């Protein structure tokens, strides 16, 4: 399954009020290409912090569902955060992990022990109350719906194809701090 297909399946199932947090790299690119209307924060660097940032946002905005779109490279950098999140267990946080077993944006180098890691086993062992794993489009379609409807903390591992994901040649017109301010203006304006 291409990552754009997986991102599209998620987009189709989101509620308009959902907030999306994107980890850095190819998952971020897959979500940008959706041009989705959902309030989105691109977490960028520091690498490994997407889940913690999403947890903090979910705790701060318990009235909104927060969906983290995460890459396996970012998550593998900091697996301990799965224990922290399971301990806090906010019912409004969902995590979808795109698994391609590579540091895609960094040049496609393999993750350590690539292909033999089960993030759902690790998450379940850390105490996550709901986990799922999708290997193809049909499974992903069904399990994205389950993830969003489960009503509690959940993690869905979605296997996607390796695809080139080169660094953008243009950094864009705004800084991360300006993007953060724009995100907050929209978030606070919607109170």
């Amino acid at each position, binding site marked *: 399954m291409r990552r754009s297909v997986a991102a599209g399946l998620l987009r189709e199932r989101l509620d308009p009020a959902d907030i999306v*947090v994107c980890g850095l790299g190819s998952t971020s690119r897959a979500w940008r290409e959706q041009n989705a209307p959902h309030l989105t*924060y691109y977490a*960028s*660097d*520091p690498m*490994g*912090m997407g*889940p*913690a*940032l*999403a*947890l*903090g*946002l*979910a*705790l*701060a*905005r318990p009235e909104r569902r927060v969906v983290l779109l995460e890459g396996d490279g970012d998550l593998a950098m*900091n697996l*301990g*955060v799965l*224990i*922290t999140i399971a*301990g*806090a267990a906010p019912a409004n946080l969902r995590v979808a992990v795109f698994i391609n077993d590579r540091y895609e944006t960094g040049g496609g180098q393999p993750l350590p022990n690539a292909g033999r890691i089960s993030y759902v086993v690790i998450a379940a062992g850390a105490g996550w109350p709901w986990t799922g794993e999708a290997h193809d489009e049909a499974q992903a379609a069904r399990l994205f719906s389950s993830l969003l409807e489960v009503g509690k903390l959940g993690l869905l591992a979605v296997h996607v194809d390796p695809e080139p994901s080169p660094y953008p040649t243009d950094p864009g017109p705004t800084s*991360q*701090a300006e993007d*953060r301010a724009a*995100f*907050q203006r929209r*978030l*606070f304006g919607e109170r």
Partner: protein
Amino acid sequence: MSETQAPGTANADRIVKALVAAGVEIATSLPDSWLSPLIARIEAEPKIRHVRVTREDDGVGICAGASLGGKRAVLVCQNAGLLLSANVLAGYAHHHQLPFLILAVYRGSHEDRFYYQMYKGLVTEPVLAALGIPFHVVEHVGDAAIVGDAVRESSLARRPVVVLFRREALLGDVKATS
């Protein structure tokens, strides 16, 4: 302070009341023995949501996310956690520009009794200065007013601010045994 209270209990109460008064609603923590009274008091505070973390940089990330969502947050940890979190602190200070507070116990200085803590005392302040993270050192018990000032400074500067507590500032002048 009542004679039946454990060392640091009354001071922990002062610090947590200052956090609440400053509008802090989310706290993350990773323990140090000098921090036990403060973390216990935070856990007991109904106006603060307390999240225990496995690494201090996760606490930084959670505080950044809470700040992104419009809430004031604090990380409570040892100064080793500041050293561990150097990249993350710099990222949220300069790249995202998100404000939050860190209350860190200052291990490794003249009042410490453990050789393995000493290197942290040597490098903590230079590392924070190099990262461009504002910090303040609290020497004596009862100086909780700095907490509210540091929260305000963080909001104004749009970056994390660190308050480093000496042992006496947390536990009073009882002799160090841990």
